[in-house]
């Protein structure tokens, strides 16, 4: 029973990180209908900003940790907006596949620039938050896990408020629903898309720092695998659907943790995809996505 609860907790914290990345994928897909492959590398840049900020700040304090987190979020938001402005905007309205290839190019560019600037060897991430372990009835809870879950919960509530309670959030949903109609009622599409990229990238930056806290070895290619998993999570929940992304990430985090703890652990990566395929076969638009019949 304790072991089960322990795995549940581990799965929850892994799922929380996947959720932060998946939200960025799903929001960009919602407004622009394309897979932003470079998103997983924005996540990597977030971890590196956290690394450099963490070395300047007092380590092992909650305030210092939060400051590093905020720095990573701000830095990634700017990076996301710049990428959209320079690379994706000129292609807007073009064929989806071209945008996709451009995104792949951007992803490779960030990865290899990262290798040139930061070096390919992994670096140890500094313990920016106080390292404490709490034991409750044999259940081992590290403070890092608590921080991951709390920060994710706070950010998701903030996102929910931003999307449903603010003017720009309403505009975002309008653009996702119908970009042309949104333009007709006076919404500045460019501003909304920039905002979406900024928001999604900030979440990825936070995800990068939180991921590095739990797996404290960072390198320029660290984003590839979590990015892919997070994208799987987004599709699992129904891509373009914000609660869906969170749900999908949670399911994926749980499944992975439980498989990791069993004797099938070497099949971990395959089972994430098998889950996705299994769900897509029965619900082709994802768990919470709505399947729209094509009209002629």
């Amino acid at each position, binding site marked *: 029973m304790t072991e089960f609860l322990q795995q549940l907790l581990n799965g929850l914290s892994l799922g929380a990180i996947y959720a932060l990345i998946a939200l960025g994928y799903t929001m960009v897909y919602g407004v622009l209908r394309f897979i932003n492959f470079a998103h997983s590398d924005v996540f990597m840049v977030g971890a590196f900003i956290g690394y450099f900020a963490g070395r300047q700040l007092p380590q092992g304090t909650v305030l210092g940790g939060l400051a590093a987190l905020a720095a990573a979020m701000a830095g990634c938001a700017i990076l996301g907006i710049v990428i959209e402005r320079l690379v994706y905007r000129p292609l807007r309205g073009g064929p989806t596949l071209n945008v996709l*290839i451009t995104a792949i190019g951007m992803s490779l560019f960030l990865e290899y620039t990262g290798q040139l600037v930061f070096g390919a060897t992994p670096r140890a991430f500094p313990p920016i938050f106080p390292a404490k372990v709490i034991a409750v009835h044999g259940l081992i809870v590290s403070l890092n896990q608590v921080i991951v879950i709390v920060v994710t919960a706070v950010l998701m509530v903030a996102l929910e408020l931003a999307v449903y309670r603010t003017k720009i959030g309403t505009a975002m949903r309008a653009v996702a629903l119908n970009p042309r109609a949104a333009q007709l009622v006076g919404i500045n599409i460019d501003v909304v898309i920039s905002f979406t990229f900024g928001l999604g990238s900030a979440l990825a930056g936070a995800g990068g720092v939180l991921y590095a806290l739990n797996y404290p070895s960072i390198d320029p290619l660290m984003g590839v695998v979590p990015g892919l998993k997070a994208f799987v999570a987004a599709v699992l929940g129904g891509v373009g659907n914000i609660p869906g992304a969170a749900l999908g990430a949670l399911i994926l985090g749980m499944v992975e943790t439980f498989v990791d703890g069993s004797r099938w652990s070497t099949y971990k990566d395959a089972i994430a995809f098998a889950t996705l395929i299994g769900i897509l076969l029965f619900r082709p638009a994802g768990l919470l996505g709505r399947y729209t019949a094509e009209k002629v």
Partner: protein
Amino acid sequence: MPKPFIALLAAVLVAFGVSHYSDRIDPYYLDVMTGVGINIILAVSLNLVNGYTGQFSLGHAGFMSVGAYLSAAITLLLGPRLLGDSGGTALQQGLLFLAALVAGGLGASLAGLAVGIPSLRLKGDYLALVTLGFGEIIRVVFQNVEALGGALGLNGIPNYTTVFWVYSFAALTVFTVVCLVRSTYGRGFIATHDDEIAAEAVGLNTTRYKTVAFVVGAFFAGVAGGLYGHFKLTITPTGFDLTKSIEIVVMVILGGMGNTPGVILAAILLTILPEVLRSVDQYRMIMYALLLIVLMLARPKGLFNFDYVAIASRLRRKPRPARE
């Protein structure tokens, strides 16, 4: 004899001729040539799925790995038994290699069938993700099968791949894809690509077309995998990951979807480019990435996709007719 057959035969003969004198060619150039040929097979076969039929597959490297492993297993395990200690004559080796390649291709096309039937009711990005997922699953399975070397992969594969085999199969791939698409039956692929609903309305079984495209594409990917394995002499599961699939997709898109000559040129260019950039090794991949972005911004329809009407009218110095 119809023209395409003559072209195929001529290509095979030329490949045989070049291969016969291959010891006079610098080994480095020979390696690059072999790499180019394998990439042509991969890109042209993926073009049938992604370009002509309009289904976005990201699992080509997965099918390639099935072919690579199956054919390598045949030459490694069955080879010594069939050929004996002496290693057999060149003809016997060639026949064994041909059988291994075809078996690898058939195995890959079976995998293609297994992937295609359940996933082809998905569309666009979802299909891309499912094919990606199948590719990754195949990779993880190979990583876990101890008989196939696990994560270390298979080593000591006999060096059977020559320019003759690579370019004969490249010619066969181009021949098959071009003839298939130009045939009466093959018009269905293009119809499925252009408008699925309209194609169904006139009585075409679009699911059938998609499956056929998948199976044929996977066959040649498997053959390419076999050639690759007997060229590199060692294969590991990580060599067939998503990066490899993306590399092939990039060739297809840069060449222009559904434009076989363009795709061949793109495969040649994108194989040689990293070699040329080897002198600036540090910046090689950055330049590759930047080039991808710039090409997509500057030539959105593919590098080798020209608007012949526009060029012709510009040559005649007449204003272009207004089009709706």
